[in-house]
């Protein structure tokens, strides 16, 4: 009769499994047909093994989080890895005693309650289980501290909780201390248990323990488990299980689409709310602290995302880069913008009625079609330098947007105007293909990003001028003189994190001057604050953020601050006396 205490645990677990089955079932059935095919086709391949490996490393060990924030990673690892091992070895222990694995789950879970006898290996298992419990308890202790004072974790802000989160959180906090107490009570009465429960058991004996007390503690332990299981699917802890599903789907080659869909939802629910994205966000400098990715994902789940939060983001990609779960935070945000603005996309009908320019009479197909982009037209220094380098290298080119050009479509994309962007893409795409040039040369990383991601230009290679000039230099078509000027390079977000181009600009700068490193560079580089990704950030706030970025970049007092984006250049030049130059200008000067 006294074993009724297993009921809360058992019912909770059954409830959890039913909910999970329905939730995951719905998500997976709602995936697109092609995505489902991908799952089926990849199931019996290496990808599944890779996914299992990653699930282990990220879901249990929390390797990425550990790398970013060791203390936070350790805490998560205690809970996930510790609990996982506790379950695994609980079953091993139960198998060793009963000689079968076909036992109802409450036998391994409440093993110490049921089994008081000695059996071969009993001492070892009891101590091992106690060690695992101690390991988890160290994590619990850290979790208590984190709630009280998040600063010891180096976290500026910890995430806020909903009522159901609180239920799950409190149950989770109680589970392991209660297990310790329940097992210790049993140890006090029957003398079993390892180094930990036995020691605490001695203390229990000293204060006097009765079977009623023991039973009550096991009830409490089971209840906390039951509450946790019931609360789990509706709380933030759902991320633990969703993340594993996400890892598998990602390994099966499923990609985030522009439109918010079932896979987007799985990503949204995979967020562990660890708060790493809050820490890397530069908005703090301007005292903006409600729009970071973790809050946006929460707002998506709670369906209360406001425009102000949605649009107030530089889309610099620092949080995406830092996210231990590897959620596509930028594209998720853009997909929300697409959803929010889909009612008012322009069709750009005027593009159809523009006078067709007479085809340029050329002797041969140009080697390069050059698209300067809107921003480059307001930085004539960059434009003039690019043309100068092309001329000197003897490259034949067609200047696509010399006089009248349409925008590339990326700024629309960033604002969520997906349908509208498609119209500009179609218009420009035709012009690019008509040129028959094998290389599309761009000066603006914003354009570069959309050409690479959304244009489908087939055989045409898309190159940023830094990549192209490096090639010209390596082929000996241009020769560069090295000066002794010290240069610090700023990675533009769209070129660096956006397109993964980090080295070509640096290689060029090493050829032309004395390149210095900066504290935060490459994947960790800071945003200049000029980004078109943010729709509502005020100029005053942008200036504050820019000021902080400049402080980091100019720490070594360089002669030149180099960048590879007209927008970054325009943004920086406003705040400093130091020379701000685009890589094209530096190359053009070094040719003299």
């Amino acid at each position, binding site marked *: 009769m006294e074993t009724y205490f297993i009921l809360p645990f058992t019912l909770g677990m059954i409830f959890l499994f039913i909910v999970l089955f329905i939730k995951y079932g719905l998500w997976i059935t709602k995936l697109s047909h092609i995505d489902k095919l991908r799952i089926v086709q990849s199931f019996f391949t290496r990808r599944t093994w890779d996914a299992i490996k990653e699930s282990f490393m990220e879901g249990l060990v929390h390797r990425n989080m550990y790398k970013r924030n060791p203390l936070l990673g350790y805490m998560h690892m205690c809970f996930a890895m510790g609990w996982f091992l506790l379950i695994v070895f609980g079953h091993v222990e139960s198998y060793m005693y009963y000689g079968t694995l076909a036992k109802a789950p409450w036998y391994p879970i409440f093993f110490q309650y049921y089994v008081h006898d000695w059996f071969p290996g009993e001492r070892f298992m009891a101590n091992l289980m106690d060690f695992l419990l101690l390991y988890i308890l160290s994590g619990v202790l850290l979790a208590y501290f984190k709630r009280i004072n998040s600063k010891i974790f180096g976290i500026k802000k910890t995430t806020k909780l909903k009522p159901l989160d609180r239920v799950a959180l409190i149950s989770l906090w109680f589970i392991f201390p209660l297990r310790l107490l329940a097992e210790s009570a049993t140890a006090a009465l029957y003398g079993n248990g390892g180094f930990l429960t036995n020691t605490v058991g001695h203390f229990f004996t000293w204060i006097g323990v009765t079977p009623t007390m023991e039973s009550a503690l096991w009830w409490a332990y089971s209840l906390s488990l039951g509450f946790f299981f019931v609360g789990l699917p509706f709380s933030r802890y759902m991320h633990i299980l969703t993340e594993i599903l996400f890892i598998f789907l990602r390994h099966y080659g499923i990609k985030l689409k522009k439109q918010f869909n079932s896979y987007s939802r799985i990503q949204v629910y995979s967020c562990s709310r660890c708060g790493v994205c809050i820490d890397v966000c530069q908005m703090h400098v301007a005292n903006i602290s409600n729009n970071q990715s973790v809050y946006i994902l929460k707002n998506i789940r709670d369906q209360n995302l406001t425009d102000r939060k949605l649009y107030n983001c530089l889309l610099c990609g620092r949080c995406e880069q830092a996210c231990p779960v590897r959620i596509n935070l930028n594209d998720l945000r853009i997909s929300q913008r697409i959803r929010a603005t889909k009612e008012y996309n322009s069709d750009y009908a005027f593009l159809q009625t523009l006078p067709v320019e007479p085809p340029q009479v050329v002797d041969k197909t140009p080697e390069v079609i050059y698209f300067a982009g809107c921003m480059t037209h307001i*930085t*004539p220094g960059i434009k*003039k330098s690019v043309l100068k380098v092309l001329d000197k290298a003897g490259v034949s080119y067609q200047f696509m947007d010399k006089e009248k050009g349409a925008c590339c479509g990326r700024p629309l994309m960033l604002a969520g105007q997906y349908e509208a962007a498609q119209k500009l893409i179609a218009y420009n795409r035709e012009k690019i293909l008509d040129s028959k040039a094998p290389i599309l040369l761009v000066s603006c990383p914003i354009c570069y990003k959309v050409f690479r991601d959304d244009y489908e230009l087939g055989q045409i290679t898309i190159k940023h001028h830094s990549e192209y000039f490096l090639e010209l230099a390596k082929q000996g078509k241009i020769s560069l003189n090295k000066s002794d000027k010290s240069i610090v390079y700023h990675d533009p977000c769209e070129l660096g994190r956006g397109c993964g181009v980090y080295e070509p600009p640096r290689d060029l700068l090493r050829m032309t001057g004395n390149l210095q490193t900066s504290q935060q560079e490459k994947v960790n580089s800071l945003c200049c604050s000029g980004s078109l990704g943010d729709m509502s950030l005020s100029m005053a706030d942008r200036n504050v953020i820019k000021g902080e970025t400049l402080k980091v970049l100019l720490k070594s007092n360089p002669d030149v601050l180099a960048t590879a984006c007209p927008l970054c250049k325009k943004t920086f*030049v406003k*705040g400093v006396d130091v020379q701000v130059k685009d890589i094209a200008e530096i190359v053009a000067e070094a040719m003299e």
Partner: protein
Amino acid sequence: MIDVLIIGGGIAGIETACSLQDLGYETIIVEKEKTIGGHLNDWDTLFPTHRSASEVLAHYTDETRRRALTIYLNTNVISVKKQDDGSFEVHTSRDVVFRSKTVVLASGYRLFNAEKKEEYGYGIYDNVITSADLEKKLKQLNGEFKTPTDKVPEKIAFIHCVGSRDEKSGNHYCSKLCCVTAVKQAIHMKQLCPNANVFCCYMDLRMYGPGFEEMYREAQEKYHVQFIRGRLSEVGENANGTLQLKVEDTLAARPCKIQVDLLVLMVGMEADKSTELFQQSCGLQCAPNRFVKPKDHHIGSNLTNIDGFFTAGACIGPMSVFDTVNHAKAVAFSVRDYLNATK
């Protein structure tokens, strides 16, 4: 210990020294350049009378000589430190350390670096010059006026508000003297090249001083200078070196393209870099526009947050020659009051 140390040997500094001498005080002037006169050395003529700048400069050179003012040329101030007894210790690039009862800051201003407005093409296109470049050119003019690419200009445009009233330049304030300077230079260009079309692209015309509005009217009536109410946005260069301006004629509500041979950017005044130095070495307070903040805008514009530390001229904001001279005369009385009170 000397009574007053004056930082800057431009017209503000010299005038301050003259006035203080008249009141019976001993002064020295510290000037970083090799001559006195500051920016006045660079100007050709002064508004609104087209009077030669060297005439005004000659007046001050004569005064300096006649009064035997003590001036340290080629001397940079490194720091100013207030002592416990209220006096100042001034360290300079020379070995001497000056000690004075008061300091008058007359360090003036610097001009906006037009390269920062990259879309205007300064430093990129040959025929884009600044208003200061034009003054120098006019001053050295020998024979016919020609553009940097050696052409007698047929079309010239003046662009108002370059580096002032511009959030993108970091200068929100109005530099106030560029409007009238543009009108003066436009007239001058018309006199030199009577066949040229001269345009002024402006946001607002601020003809605040005596004779300014009359000059504006003269530019329209007599010289047919065309005023376009629109701010320049972008400049392109044609193969022949002429420039294409993109500006909206806002009164006609139509974008317009103008081809010109010469583009003159009316660069605004900015706080001199040295004010930062005083901020650091003696806690001088500056306004958000980076100029020195007067203690009282209306009845104490020569005073600063530091007792015994005064200002004269454009270190507190854009100022014309005559405003500067008046401000410098006024500081003499502020210094006298202070010295009398602390005697």
